[in-house]
């Protein structure tokens, strides 16, 4: 098989299909949830739902640090690893030059992009964190029970994306490069298709669900 033909297929019809599937799939999930509906709540709010919702969005990423002693100390790998992984993966998805040009085409404007050195640091930290988190899942007795094939598949896919991205950028040359970048884009396209069908949809709906959670807390007048 000729590598550039595989490359053309991945960045042509496959990527286009993946993006259609992503936008349609995410909207489908949202609409299905909306149509499920909620019973009307006649109780008067005891607190300020909107303020609590905004507070929840703003504070959620820092709560591990707030409860350092009782939570962070016991789940350090999850907090440190989770933080570094999310920071790295989201940073790389949106703010490296090669991806910035792709986003420009989709959303109509170019996102600012970071220097390659910062991107490299994020990639290495995200990859190592992902590895640590996966190993933690395998050996932690509670997490092990909560983990299914979905999680392992998602971790494998994301790991492949970061690893091949790093390889393409830093380590591969000549004939191998085209295969590596094709594999990078192929795993990216599979991930884009997989997100709407899995728990990875929190990639889009995270803030919405956290907002909803905060809103309910505010309504009941309780604390987080």
């Amino acid at each position, binding site marked *: 098989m000729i590598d550039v033909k595989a490359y*053309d297929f991945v960045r042509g019809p496959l990527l286009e299909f993946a993006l259609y599937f992503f*936008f349609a*799939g995410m909207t489908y999930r949202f609409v299905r949830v909306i149509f499920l509906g909620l019973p009307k709540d006649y109780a008067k709010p005891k607190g300020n739902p909107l303020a609590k919702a905004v507070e929840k969005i703003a504070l959620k990423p820092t709560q591990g640090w707030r409860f350092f002693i009782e939570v962070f100390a016991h789940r350090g790998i999850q907090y440190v690893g989770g933080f570094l992984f999310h920071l790295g993966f989201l940073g790389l998805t949106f703010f490296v030059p090669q991806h910035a040009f792709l986003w420009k085409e989709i959303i109509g404007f170019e996102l600012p992009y970071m220097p390659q050195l910062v991107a490299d640091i994020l990639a290495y930290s995200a990859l190592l964190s992902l590895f640590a988190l996966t190993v933690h899942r395998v050996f932690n007795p509670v997490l092990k029970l909560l983990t299914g094939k979905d999680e392992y598949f998602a971790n494998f896919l994301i790991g492949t994306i970061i690893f091949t991205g790093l390889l393409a950028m830093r380590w591969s040359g000549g004939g191998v490069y085209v295969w590596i970048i094709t594999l990078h884009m192929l795993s990216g396209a599979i991930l884009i298709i997989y997100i709407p069908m899995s728990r990875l949809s929190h990639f889009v709906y995270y803030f919405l669900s956290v907002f909803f959670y905060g809103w309910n807390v505010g309504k009941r007048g309780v604390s987080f």
Partner: protein
Amino acid sequence: MHTLYDLFKVKGYSRRDFLKFATLTAAALGLPPSMFAQFVHALETKPKPVVIWLEFQDCAGCSESFIRSTTVMPTEVLLDFISLEYHETLMAPAGERAEESKREAIEKYKGKYILVVEGSTTPKGVYCTVGGRSNYELLKEAAKDAGAIIAVGSCACWGGVPKAEPNPTGAVPLYEALGGKTVVNIPGCPPIGDVMVATVVHFLALGKLPPLDNLGRPKTFYGQTIHDRCYRRAFYNAGKFAGSFDDEGARNGYCLYKLGCKGPITRNACATIRWNGGLSFPIQSGHPCFGCAEPDFWDRGFIYRPLPVVETGFGLKKVAAGIAIGAAAGAGIAWVNKKLKGGK
């Protein structure tokens, strides 16, 4: 028959010039220094190669490039060195005499001559006939007893412009038309002349083809991408890009990736050997590489579109279409579900 060294002498060049050519060519081919003596000796003693050069669906640009490969070999020597028994553009005979000389050469140098093909071929149809015979017929006849077959240019190697959508003549690359035979592919539009000369010289001096990759390209010249050897690579790594052809970035010589440079996926020696006697190459002159040495480059969309974008394009309209499809499907299925469960 003359040897290459004889030709240098006849044309008034010194032994120093000859040695300079031989060393440069050996170095370009990536031969180890221990082989230089053997290489030089072979060029001094072996008779010059017989070449039959066929042109099919082409523009003769590869021939132009070949005769201007002056980096390593002086033009007047080159034209005598390659004993062109048949070359439609360069040979003196014409008409039936030309065809006759070709047939004679095929017969006389059976199993020894180098067949160079420029342009794509058409196994079906009657396109590009010479002397009343189809190009495919001529190709098979010449390829049958060739010592080596070299496809020069992207048309011969991959089909090139004639094979671009919708491929009206049913053009195919040489390796497809000659399925089973080893074909050396020297792609490019045109390929670098020195690469063509060096490949022929390798066959002459060492009696075998240079190491080839899985697509039949000499690894020495097509083993790395232009991006690997680009002098602007540091700007790519630093995230410094020219945004247009006349902005500050372009004036500072920043990377042309954003302007559609296909260097990262293009294997060729432009960034190392360069063109016009090693003077420059497209990226050096401020224009992005458009990947002419890779298969199907004519069908790879607009040449100024950056590589990371979706080739078929994906803007806000398509995003909206995706959202609309998802919303309609979600609402429709939710409504059907409610009906099935007897809800309102």
